[in-house]
C-alpha cells in the first residue's frame, strides 16, 4: 500500500522563530486563505509549481526553444515567463544554464518528513527546540500533518503548529492533541473585512480559537494568538481593541504575539507569475512606533495575557507537558 504523501515546499533547518530553541520548520503547500500580504506565496497553491528567478537569467534562450507552448520569451536578453500558458511539465528546468528554474514543492510521507526533522535532534535539546509545521496551511493535508506531529511527539521532539484555524474542529483538535504549542492568526476581527483581506470570513476561525482555548490547556498544549501588523490593513485601533476584547475572554490567558509586517516574500511573487499587491513603504521592526503603539493598545485591553513582539520573542515557558 502506498503511504500518503503531502506536498511540502520547503524544509527550513536552524530556524529560531515559531517556537522555542532551534527548530526545523516544515512548510506545507496549499492554503485556503489568500491574504493580500502573504509573505510566502509558494505556499498558496497546493500543486507542484514551476518557479523561475528571472533576475539571474543569463539570456541563453534555451528554455525559449525548448517549450512548445511558448511560455518563455526573451526581452532584452532576460527571460519573460507567461505562467498562464504553463502546464507545469517541468521539462525546461534542466535546460537552464543559470539554474534559475525549480519545481516548487515535493511529495513526502510523514515518516520521511520526520526523518528529516530528526537529523537535527542534537541541536534541539538545549533550549527545547523541535519541529514546527507551517505553510501554506499544514491542516489542508491533515493526514500527513497529524501523523508527522504524532511521530515527533512520540519521539520526544517539541512540536509546534502554525495554522490559520480555517479548518474543521475535528482536524484542528486531532492535530493539537500532539502539539506543545499551536499558533493561530487573528488577521482581522471584522468578518467582512476579513473576507476582503483574506478571501474567507473569520467566523469559523474565531469559533475554533474559542474551542481550542477551552480544550488545549488541560492537554498540556499552549495556544499563542498571532496578529500580523500590516500597516493600513489591520493596524487600526478599533480592530486591535476588538481583538483584545476577544482574547480577554479566552480561557487560559493565551499569549499574544505581534508580528511586524515584512515584504521578504515580495520577490517570490514574480517567480511564480503572481503580483504583489501591498504598497507599504518599509518593513517594520519591533522598535517602530506602529509596533510599539499596537503593543500598548493590546496591553491596555488585556489584563493577564503576555504580549510579545516578534516571532523570536515568545515565552519559552509553558512548553506543555514535555
Amino acid at each position, binding site marked *: 500500500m502506498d503511504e500518503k504523501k503531502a506536498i511540502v515546499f520547503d524544509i527550513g*533547518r*536552524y530556524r*529560531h522563530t515559531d517556537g522555542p530553541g*532551534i527548530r526545523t520548520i516544515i512548510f506545507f503547500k496549499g492554503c485556503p486563505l489568500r491574504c493580500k500580504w502573504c509573505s510566502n506565496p509558494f505556499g498558496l497553491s497546493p500543486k507542484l509549481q514551476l518557479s523561475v528567478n528571472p533576475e539571474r537569467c543569463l539570456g541563453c534562450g534555451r528554455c525559449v526553444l525548448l517549450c512548445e507552448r511558448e511560455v518563455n520569451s526573451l526581452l532584452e536578453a532576460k527571460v519573460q515567463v507567461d505562467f498562464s500558458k504553463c502546464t507545469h511539465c517541468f521539462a525546461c528546468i534542466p535546460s*537552464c*544554464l543559470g539554474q534559475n528554474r525549480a519545481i516548487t514543492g515535493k511529495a513526502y510521507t510523514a515518516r520521511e518528513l520526520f526523518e528529516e526533522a530528526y537529523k*537535527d535532534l542534537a541541536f534541539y535539546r538545549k*533550549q527545547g527546540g523541535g519541529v514546527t509545521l507551517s505553510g501554506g496551511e499544514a491542516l489542508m493535508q491533515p493526514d500527513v500533518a497529524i501523523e508527522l506531529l504524532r511521530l515527533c511527539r512520540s519521539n520526544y521532539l517539541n512540536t509546534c503548529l502554525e495554522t490559520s484555524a480555517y479548518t474543521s474542529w475535528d482536524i484542528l483538535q486531532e492535530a493539537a492533541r500532539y502539539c506543545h504549542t499551536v499558533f493561530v492568526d487573528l488577521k482581522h476581527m471584522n468578518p467582512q473585512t476579513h473576507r476582503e483581506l483574506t478571501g474567507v470570513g473569520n467566523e469559523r476561525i474565531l469559533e475554533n480559537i474559542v474551542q481550542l482555548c477551552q480544550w488545549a490547556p488541560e492537554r498540556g498544549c499552549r495556544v499563542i494568538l498571532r496578529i500580523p501588523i500590516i500597516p493600513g490593513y489591520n493596524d487600526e485601533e478599533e480592530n486591535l481593541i476588538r481583538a483584545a476584547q476577544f482574547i480577554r475572554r479566552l480561557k487560559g490567558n493565551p499569549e499574544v504575539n505581534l508580528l511586524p509586517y515584512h515584504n521578504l516574500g515580495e520577490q517570490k511573487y514574480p517567480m511564480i507569475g503572481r503580483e504583489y499587491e501591498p504598497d507599504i513603504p518599509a518593513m517594520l521592526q519591533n522598535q517602530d512606533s506602529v509596533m510599539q503603539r499596537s503593543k500598548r493598545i493590546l496591553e491596555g485591553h488585556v489584563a493577564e495575557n503576555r504580549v510579545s513582539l516578534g516571532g523570536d520573542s515568545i515565552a519559552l515557558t509553558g512548553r506543555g507537558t514535555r
Partner: protein
Amino acid sequence: MVATELKGGQLGQAIRSGNVAKSGSTKRTQELNGMLHANRPNVDITRARAYTKVYRETEGQPPLRRRYRAAAEVYRSLSDRVYDYEQLVGWPTQRIRGANFAIELHAHWLADDLPNLRDRIYDPFEISDEDRKELQEDLIPYWKDKTPTAQWKTYVTPEEFDRAQNGGVSDVSNYICSNGSHFIPRWTDVIAHGFVKYYEEAKAFLAALDPNDPQSIDRREFYLGLIEVCEAIRDWAERLSASCARKAETESDPVRKEELLKMASMMQRVPWGPATSFYDACETAWCVCFFLFVEGAGPSITWGRFDQYMYPYYKADVEAGKLTPEGALELIEELYIRVTSNVWFQSTNMAYIFGGYYRYPHLDVGGLDENGKDASNELSYLCLRAMRYARTTSPAVCLMLHQKTPDSLLLEACELAAEGMGHPSFFNCEGLYDMLERRAAGLNGHSHYTRKQILTYGSPIGCVEPGAEGLQYGHTDSGIINVAGATLCALTNGVKAEGVDGSFCGKLVTYESGDPQDLTTFEAFYAAVKGQVEYAIKEAHANMLIVEKILAEQFNLPTFTMLLEGAMEKCKDATTGGALVNVGPTMNMCGFATMVDSVAAIKKVVYEDKEATLAQVRDACLANFVGYEELRAKLKAAPTFGNDLDFVDEIAADLWKHFATVSARLKLYRAGQYCDAAVQMVQSNVGYGAMTGATPNGRLAKMPISDTMSATQQADRNGPTAAARSYGKLDYSLYTNGTLLNMWISQSEMMEPS
C-alpha cells in the same frame, strides 16, 4: 573614532585603515591601544645587526656556539624605552608594531625584494632609508647564501626548488622561513621560578661534566651557551629597571611616578626571579612571549592555559586585597595590546598567502583539570571580557569547550563571538585530547604524553595545533597541499592549467596518473585523485626533511630549549629533539571541499548520469568553462559537501582519511616519530586559488578554493545545522596536527540569550 561604536567588518576596516582605535576598559588601555594603532608595521634591523656582528666574529666556530651567542647578543641589543601609560615593561623593537626580523631566514628573498617592501600589495612595511641602505649593502650580502632556503636549493634540482615554492600544489615555502614557532613554553615553571632556575641548572650540569667523556665537548658548548643567554636576559631586565627608575626621576605626576617606581622594582624581580604577584606574572608572560617571537621567526607563540597557571597569583592577590578584578582586566587588556604589536614579517610570496601581519599568538581558557573536572575560574571570564574591551586582533582567545563547561562561560564566549571579530575560537576538548594521544605517533601508535599531562597541560597552539605546555616542540605550519589543484591534476594527467598564477602553467606539476580517456570507471578516476594527493604529500615531505636537517644543524634555539621540560637534562636543543614530543614537519590540507565537491560532481555527471566524459570535463576545466556552460551547470547541480547528504559526505570522509593516513606513514627527521596531518590554514585558500585552474565543481580559474575544512563558499545551502552534521561525519582524531572550521552566521540568525 571610538572603535566600540563600530562592529564586525566595519571595525576591522577602520583598524586596518590606520585610523586610531582607542578601545579599552580604562583610559590607560585606550591610550595604549591608540599608540599601537597609530603605528604602521615597520622593520627593525637590531636583531639582524646583532646576528651579523656575532657571526662575523665567530667565523669557523661550532654552529651551536654561534647561534647561542647571537641569541644572547640580541637580548643585549633590545630597546630599553619606557612609554607613557604602560604598566608592563619592555618591547621587542625600537618602534611599536615593529618586526625585529630574522635575517638569517629571510635574506635570500630580501635581496631581490627589499626595494618593494614599502609598497608591496600585501603586508607592506615601513623602513627608513638608512636601515634599507645598511641591509642592502652590508647585512643582506652576508646572509643571502646562508639562509635555509638558499642551502636547501643546493640539495635539490632547480625544477624541484621552483615547484615547491611556486607550483601551487605541493608547497613548502612557509615552512622554510619560520624556524622557531608554534610553541607553548613551560609557563607554570618560568613564572614560578624565573630564568635564574635555568641559569643555576645549566651551571650545575656544566660542573658535573666529565671532560674525559667524548660527549662532554658538545655538552659544554650547550651549557656555556645557555648560561650566556640567561645572563643576557638578566642584564636586559636590569637595564629596563634602570630605565623605569630614570623616567620616574623626571616624572612630575606623582601617581605616574609611583607607577614607574613600581615597574622599576618589578623588573628587579622578574623575569629573572620568581613572580610574587599577578602583576609580576603578567610581566613574565609578556616578556617571555616576545623573547620567543624575536628569537624565532615564525608564528604562534602561545600562552596556552593562561587562566590555569595565572589563577594562583590572581587569587592570592585578590584575597590579600592587592588586586581587584578590574585591575586584572586592565593588565590582561594591556597584554593583548602589547602582543598585537608583534607583526609577522614574511616574504612577498608568503604575504600573498598569509597576508595581514597577524602572528597567531593564542590564549586558552576553560578546559578540564587533571582530574577531569571543569577547570574554569574567574580569570576565564576576565580573559574573554578583556577582548571585548581591547578589540585587538591578537591573541586568538579560545574557549576549550567540553560537556562540563558552565553555561555562563559559554554564554560569555558567545557574547564575544557575537561581536563579529573572529574571537573566540572554540575547541572541543574531547577532540583535542584524542589528537594529543596520537600526536606524532604514526598510524597505530600512541604519543609519549600521559593522560595527566594531556589534561593538565594540553591546549591548542595558534591556529589550531594540539600541543602541551613545555612538552612539545616542532614547527607545525608545514607543507601545504593544495588538494583542489591535485584533483585537477587527476584530470589533466599531472599538468597545471594555463593562465593561472605561479610557475609550471601548462607543464607537468605533479606526476602522470593516467590519461582521462583511460579512466573508464569511477574507481579508476578516484584512484588517480588519491594518487595525486599522495604524490603531493610525499614531495613536500621529502623537501621538508632536507630543511629539518639544515635547521637542526645550524639554526638552534636556546630560549626555546630552556623553556622545554627536560631538554637541558637531555642536553638537546629544541631543533634537534629536546622536547618530550617532537612534531613536524606536518602536512596541511588546503581546498578540501573543492576537492570533495569536484569528485562528487564527476561521480554524478560522468560515471552515474553519463552526461559527459571525463575528457570533456577536463577540456571544460582547462577552457575555464567557456563554451561549456551547460556542462558547468550540470556539475554545479551535483550534491555538495556541507548539506548533510551522504552521497558526497561519504566521499569526504574517505578522502579525509586518505590524506591523514598517507601523512601518518611518513617519518620525521628527529626522534623517529611520524608526520601529522592538519587542516589549519586560514586565508591561504585565496592565494592557492589564484594558482589553480577551473575545477570540476564549477569553480572558475583563479577564484578562491574552499576555506579550511569548511564547505565550498555558498554551497552549504541547508543551514548551519545541516553543515554541522556533514562536518560531524569526519574522523577528527586522524588529524593530529589539528583542524579548523570557519562558520559564518549572519547577525540576523543569532538568537537572543533567553
